């Protein structure tokens, strides 16, 4: 099921970095939803496509350890060689990017990013935040409130928040679907570049074929209540 595709900039460190879904069977109230096995190496993006109700989001919920009531799952999940199938969500170090940026309204832009960073001296973290903001073209916006930013700027802050939390993998849940086409293209490029640069395994759920093409990875199409068809 998962054979090819080692990304071009695959390095030695990335060889150990991988997210492996092993024999997953997801059910909704005893009804079979999907079966999946896949290995995603660092810097690779696995794209999951399919209509609503095909279980895309449920799959991401399972990977984050937040499977809703009414769903059940079999199968194992490995991250960098550790079995994390039953580990609590907050200990998994799997970052999430949703279509809504979901920035915390009670914190500033810098506060949102600082929230995500591991504890370290304040000055050090502030310097890291400023650097990161400059890199994505948001230099000087540290103290702004998230609501005062445009949609594209919010999306970039959300990306920085995930990246600076030093995740070991990233899940993208229709991350660009609320952006207009120009912004979508730019943001997508930025997100994918960062994923490759940090050598993170990523799973992206999307409706959009151009997203899937841009990811340049394996694409799995889910049909409703059917076994997956592999492209």
């Amino acid at each position, binding site marked *: 099921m998962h054979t090819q595709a080692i990304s071009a900039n695959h390095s030695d460190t990335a060889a150990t970095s991988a997210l492996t879904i092993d024999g997953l069977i997801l059910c909704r109230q005893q009804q079979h939803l999907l079966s999946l096995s896949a290995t995603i190496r660092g810097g690779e993006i696995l794209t999951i496509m399919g209509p609503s109700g095909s279980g895309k989001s449920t799959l991401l919920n399972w990977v984050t350890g937040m499977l809703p*009531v009414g769903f059940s799952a079999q199968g194992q999940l490995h991250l960098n060689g550790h079995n994390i199938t039953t580990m609590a969500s*907050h200990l998994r170090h799997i970052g999430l990017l*949703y279509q809504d940026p979901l920035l915390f*309204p009670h*914190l500033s832009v810098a506060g949102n990013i600082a*929230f995500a960073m591991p*504890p370290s001296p304040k000055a050090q973290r502030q310097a890291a935040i400023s650097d990161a903001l400059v890199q994505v073209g948001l230099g000087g916006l540290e103290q702004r409130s998230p609501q005062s930013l445009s949609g594209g700027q919010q999306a970039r802050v959300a990306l920085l928040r995930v990246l600076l939390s030093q995740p070991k993998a990233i899940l993208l849940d229709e991350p660009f679907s609320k952006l207009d086409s120009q912004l979508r293209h730019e943001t997508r490029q930025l997100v994918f570049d960062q994923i490759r640069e940090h050598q993170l395994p990523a799973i992206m759920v999307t409706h959009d074929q151009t997203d899937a093409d841009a990811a340049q990875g394996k694409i799995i199409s889910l049909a409703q209540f059917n076994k997956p068809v592999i492209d």
Partner: protein
Amino acid sequence: MSTIAKLFNPMVRFSPFIMMALLLFPVLGGLIGVILPALGWIPALDQTQFNLNGFSQLWQTPGIGHMALLSITTSLVSTLLAFIITILILASYFTSPWLGYIQRLLGPILVIPHAAAAIAIGFLITPSGMVSRLASPWLSGWDAPPDWLYPHDALGLSIILGLTLKELPFLLLMALGVLAQPDLGQTLRAQHKVALSLGYCPMTAFFKVVLPSLYPHLRLPILAVLTYASASVEIPLILGPNNPPTLAVAIMQWFHDVDLSLRIKASAGAIVQIQLTLLVLACWWLLERLVIKFAKPLLTNGEREYGGVIIQQFTHVITALMLAVIGLALVGLVLWSFAGFWYFPDALPQQFVILHWQSALQQMHTPLIDTLLIALCATALAITLTLLTLEAEQHSGKSLSLLGSVLIYLPLLIPSIAFLFGLVWLLEQINSQHTFINVVLAHVLFVLPYVFLSLASSYRRFDPRFSIVAASLGASKAKIFFRIKLPMLIGPIFIACALGLAISFSQYLPTLLTGGGRINTITTEAVSLANGGSRRISAVYALMQMMLPALGFLLAWLLPKLISTNHYQK
């Protein structure tokens, strides 16, 4: 065109003004009726010189500082406890189905009148109550009821227990209401997930991400709870110390004194009560500022775990303890109402009798009918005015102004003890002899805000396209109102009715004061029985107080179902 259709539009146009007048005049008139006597102006006692004698009398009252302090501490501590437990429950069960179960268990507590709740808790902690019975003699070694002062302890711990248990369900349901708002609730839950994915333990994620966004929505309910608690009468009267009592209870006793000159002191006390309530609100505000100031840097310090597991276990214990206290209080009440002989350390009575129910039901015949009549009249008036005012909003296309919204909640925002005495005085001045109407109007002051609160959101959310379709079919506004809106909103209307009835059933002070002793309801009877006479009869009255609103809500839940099924079977 029928008469109703002709009258409908003018009625709709005027109803907001009638509603405002019904709320504004009694409250403002009542305040004036307290301020004037407080300044020494009581023509009935030949006092027409303005002076501050009332206030100096008040300062000279022995224990006045203690009374004020008791009001302040009991209201602040109980609200703080209720708030903390609410937050702990939300934080511990945020992603768990238990949140829903706890909501369903605590929801009914909301409509239990304060007096009934106080009686139940009093029975629980009294020397021969369930707590000491269950602990005796195996744990405590007591063969006779212990010699403690509960439920009338001087520190007001019993008051705090009573207020906390009543305030907690209110705050919790308010918070769950906020989380049930489609946009806000989903966003907060998604942000909680984001925090988990960033490595925050669920407890820390709640405190750092959800609480800062949730709290602003809880501030107003908290202030309402503080206002109520600082000036409430029923709970301190039944669960509080007698000498000295809380300020609000003392004011009530001075007003009822045979010595009419004490009314001046009581009026001055009512003015001080308003200031005391404001002081309590200011204390909360200060506390809030301090917490925000000290907690803000913690939000972004990156710490992800603060002993969440221990806090969660602590919450399990607190929640279980609280549910046990409530359950035990209710069981105790039922046992007392059927108890024959009941020797001390035994947990169950030696014999069960229905004698108390029989004699109580005979006694309560007239109060019961009065209770129902007053509640039905007040609720009918409140529902009619609310529906017409909401309809007026849609006719004019404008929402109620901010001033209008504040006016609706005015009777809940001003301590009722501060204006009700003035209202009684005002009614005496205009020589209103119709006691029944006076009581109904006083109840409307408190029923209306709740009915409006309960109906407004569903009425405003009503899909306007139904009205547009009906209008395009040639229906008049009156026809749309009666034939489309009312039938479609029958569920929320019935719930609002049940709520209105429950609020009216529970009114103690308004009934006592405007009724002038001529009209008694189950609640006024229950309070006067609570501290004397027979604990068994008192238990029956408290249970009746609980059954009436429960019956109302049961009907409100059943009737719309029956109506709609009948409709379709034809």
